[in-house]
C-alpha cells in the first residue's frame, strides 16, 4: 500500500543528500556571495573604500571583505579615484591580469566621468578603458553608496547566464 507523503519540507532521510536547483542559480549564488574586490584606490575615494572595509560599515556582511591585492585572486575591480592618463595603462593591465569572470565598479565622480578634473592629465571616465558594470555617484561617495553598488553588482551577477559557457569548450 502506498501512503501519501505528508512531508512538506525537505527530508534528507527520504530524498537523500540531494538538492534540486538550476546550475545558473547555484553558480551565481556562489559568485555573488563572495565577490573578492581588487581595491584600485587612486585618490580620496580610496579612503572611503577603506571605511567600507572597516568595522562600522563592514563590507563583510556582503561577502566582499577579502580585498585581494593580487589581480589573479580578485573578481571585482573597484576603481576608487582619479585615473590619470599616466596611470590608465597600468589600470588596464591589472584588469587584464584578473581571471574571468570579472567585474568593475567605478566609484565616484572621477572614475565615472573624470569628475571635476577637466584637464590634460585626467582620463575622462574609466569606462574609456574598462567595461564598467556599476557606477557610483558622489565625491567621494558615502560608504553606504558603495555597499548599495555592491548589492546592485550582486543582483547583476545573479542575472547572468553563467552555466551556458561551462559546457562549451572555448
Amino acid at each position, binding site marked *: 500500500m502506498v501512503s501519501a507523503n505528508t512531508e512538506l519540507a525537505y527530508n534528507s532521510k527520504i530524498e537523500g543528500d540531494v538538492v534540486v536547483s538550476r546550475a545558473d542559480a547555484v553558480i551565481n549564488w556562489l559568485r555573488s556571495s563572495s565577490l573578492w574586490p581588487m581595491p584600485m584606490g587612486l585618490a580620496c575615494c580610496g579612503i572611503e573604500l577603506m571605511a567600507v572595509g572597516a568595522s562600522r560599515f563592514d563590507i563583510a556582511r556582503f561577502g566582499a571583505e577579502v580585498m585581494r591585492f593580487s589581480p589573479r585572486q580578485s573578481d571585482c575591480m573597484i576603481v576608487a579615484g582619479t585615473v590619470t*592618463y*599616466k596611470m*590608465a*595603462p597600468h589600470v*588596464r*593591465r591589472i584588469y*587584464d591580469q584578473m581571471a574571468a569572470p570579472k567585474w568593475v565598479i567605478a566609484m565616484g*565622480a572621477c572614475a565615472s*566621468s*573624470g*569628475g*571635476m*578634473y*577637466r*584637464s*590634460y*592629465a*585626467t582620463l*575622462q*571616465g574609466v*569606462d*574609456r*578603458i574598462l567595461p564598467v558594470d556599476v557606477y557610483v555617484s558622489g565625491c567621494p561617495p558615502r560608504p553606504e553608496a558603495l555597499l548599495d553598488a555592491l548589492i546592485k553588482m550582486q543582483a547583476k551577477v545573479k542575472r547572468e547566464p553563467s552555466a551556458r559557457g561551462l559546457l562549451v569548450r572555448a
Partner: protein
Amino acid sequence: MATDIIATIIARFPGAAARASGDHPAVSVPAAAAPAVLQAVREEFGYDFLVDVTAVDWGLEAAVRFTVVWHLFSTVAHGYLRVTADCTDNAAPAMASAVPLWPTANWHERETFDLLGITFTGHPDLRRILMWEGYPYHPLRKDFPLAGIEVPLHDPEIAAETGITLIAAPMAGGPFVASPGEMNLTEAEPRAKDESWNEASAKPTA
C-alpha cells in the same frame, strides 16, 4: 639685513637689480651670474635652505618669456629671499642647475623642466617627473590649453587594445569655467555644453 643683502648683491654682481615684491626681499640677476649669486647668499649670508625652484612664463609676446625663480630661507636670520633670473633664449630656455648647491633642487628642477620646459644644465638626472617620458608638450606654458591636446596613448599595447587616445577634456560648463548667470549649473554639471556626452550624444570611444 634684508635691504643690506639686496644692496650687496647689486653692488657685487653687475646687472643685478632690485625686484618689486609684495612680501619678501627680491633681486633679479643675470642668468650667467645666477650660480655665483646663489652660492654667495648661501655661504656668506646664511640663506642655506632652498624652499622652491619654479619658473614664470610671461607669454608668447613677451621679450623675455621665461624667468626662473628661487625661494631661499635663512635658518640663521629666519628670513626669506627671492632670486630670479631671466632665461636668455625664449625658444629653448636653459638655466644652470642648483643641484650642486642644494640636492633638494633635483626634483624641483625636474618639475620645472616637465611643466615649463626649462632645461637645467648640469642637472644629474633631468627627466620628466609628473608627465610620462615622451609626452610632447609642457603643460604649464601659456600656449598649452588646459583641456590638453590630442596625442596617442603612451602605452602602444594598451592603446591598441582599448583604441583610445588622449582627448582634449570637455571644458565649457566645467567647474573651472566661471560664467555666472549664463547657465543653469544643475544642467551644466558635470556635463559640458559643447563637447559633452550624454543620452543624446554618445561618448567618444576613441
